[in-house]
C-alpha cells in the first residue's frame, strides 16, 4: 500500500491564527467536531481544551526536494521502507516478498542517522535492526511483516515519538516473535555474574 500525499491548499501567512474551541462541550464523535476557519486545515475540537488539527505529516513537513531537514529526509526514507513492505505484503511468492523486505531493511542504517529526531524514533529503528540481525536472513512471517509495516507507518505519522511510546511499538514487534535485543547483551551480563562469583 502506498502512502498518498493529500493535496491540501497551502496555508497563507496572513491566514487568521487558530483559536481553541471554548464551547466547553466535550465531543467524541467526529461528526460533531468544529471545523476551524483556517484555510486548508481542518481543525477538530473535542471538548474545551482538546484541539486536534488534522494535518497530514507530509503537509506538516513539506519542503522542496533536496532539503537538508532531518525530519523531511527521515519521512522520505520511512515512506520508501513502508512502500517496500507494502509491496512485500502484496507479493505472490515468499521470495518476491523477501526481496522487498530486504530493500526496506537497507533503509534502517540511513534512518538511524536521523535518530536525533527523538528517542522513540531511535529505539524503533534500532530494535528493527536487531530484529533483522537475529533473524539471520530468515524471511519475516506474514504477521511479522504486517507488524513491521504498521509500526513504521505509525512512526511516519508521528516521528517525534517519546521513548515511552517507542518502547510500546517495540513491544508490539516482540509480540509477533521478533527478537529485538542485541544478541550479545546476555553475554555481557554473564560476564558480570561470573566475575562477581569469583
Amino acid at each position, binding site marked *: 500500500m502506498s502512502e498518498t500525499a493529500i493535496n491540501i491548499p497551502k496555508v497563507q501567512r496572513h491566514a487568521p491564527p487558530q483559536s481553541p474551541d471554548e464551547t466547553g462541550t466535550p465531543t467524541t464523535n467526529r461528526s460533531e467536531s468544529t471545523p476551524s476557519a483556517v484555510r486548508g486545515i481542518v481543525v477538530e475540537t473535542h471538548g474545551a481544551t482538546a484541539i486536534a488539527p488534522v494535518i497530514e505529516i507530509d503537509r506538516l513537513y513539506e519542503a522542496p526536494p533536496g532539503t537538508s531537514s532531518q525530519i523531511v529526509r527521515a519521512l522520505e526514507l520511512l515512506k520508501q521502507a513502508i512502500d517496500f513492505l507494502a509491496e512485500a505484503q502484496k507479493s505472490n511468492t515468499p521470495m518476491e516478498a523477501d526481496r522487498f523486505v530486504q530493500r526496506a531493511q537497507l533503509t534502517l542504517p540511513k534512518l538511524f542517522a536521523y*535518530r536525533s529526531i527523538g528517542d522513540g524514533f531511535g529505539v524503533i529503528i534500532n530494535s528493527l535492526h536487531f530484529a533483522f540481525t537475529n533473524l539471520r536472513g530468515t524471511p519475516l512471517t506474514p504477521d511479522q511483516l504486517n507488524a513491521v509495516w504498521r509500526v513504521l507507518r505509525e512512526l511516519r505519522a508521528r516521528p517525534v515519538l517519546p521513548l*515511552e511510546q517507542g518502547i510500546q511499538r517495540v513491544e508490539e514487534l516482540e509480540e509477533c516473535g521478533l527478537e529485538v*535485543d*542485541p544478541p550479545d547483551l546476555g553475554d*555481557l551480563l*554473564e*560476564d*558480570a555474574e561470573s566475575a562477581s562469583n569469583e
Partner: protein
Amino acid sequence: MSDAYVETTVLTDILLKPKTPKQDRAKAALARFENTLLPVYSIKEWKAGPLDYFAWLHDKLVVTQSLRDTFQALSVLARGSYRQSTSLEALTAAATVSRRYLGLGNSDADHADSYRLALESLIIRSWRKRRKITTRVVDDLSCYNEVEPRLGKDRLFDLSPQQCERDQECCLAPQLKSRPQLLQALRDAIPENSDRREDQKRRKALKRLIKHPKEIVNRETCRDLGDAIFAFFCPANAVVLTTNLRDHRPLAESIHKKAEKP
C-alpha cells in the same frame, strides 16, 4: 506436581538474557510447573543486581559515547576486583576490530548510541514484564517500594530505591523470628569456615536473628539474609528454582525443602 518458587537468577535469565540458551532453559522450566511463584524479594535483588549492572553499562555509554571505551572500562573493573572474562575480552576486541555484533551506524559513537538505545529499551521492557512471567507474584514486601527505572534529564538511569525503607523493620521479620529452629538449621548449612563474604554475612545475620529476636531487623540484615530467605519462605509444596544450586541446595535441604535447576 510441585510449584516453582522463582529465585533471582532465573528471573534474570528470563528478563535480561535474550536469545541465550539460559533464557530458553528458564522459560522451559517455568512451563513445566503448573504454578510458578515469584517472590517480591527476587524482584528486589534483581533490580539491585543485574538490572543495576545494565543501567551502569547504559550510563557509561551515555558518558563516554564510545562502545570501545565502555568495554574497556568494563574490563578494567573486571581486572580490578574480579577476573577478566574471556567473552568480555572478545567483546572488547569486537568493538575494535569486528562488526559482527555491533549496532547501527558507522562510527564508535554510533555503535555506542545503538547499544544505549538497546539497553534503554531492554531495561524498561524487562521491568514491565517482571510480574508477568510467573502465574503469581507472592510474598509482597510492604517495606519495599517497586519504583520503575527512570531516565533523568541527563539521560542517566535512576534505579532508586534499591533497598527497603530505612528506619522501618523488615516486614518479613515476624515470620522469621517465629521459627528460630529453621533459622538455626539454615545457619548450620552455611560452612563455618567459608571465606566468601556473602556466607559470612548470612551466618552473622542469622545468628543475630536467633540470639536477639527483640532486635529490629533492618534493611541491611534483610539483604544479608539473601539466599536464606528463599529457602525459608518457599512453600512446602514448592521447589526453589535457581541456577545457583551451590548456594541454594544446602540451605533448602537443611529445612527439608528442595532446590532445582531449570
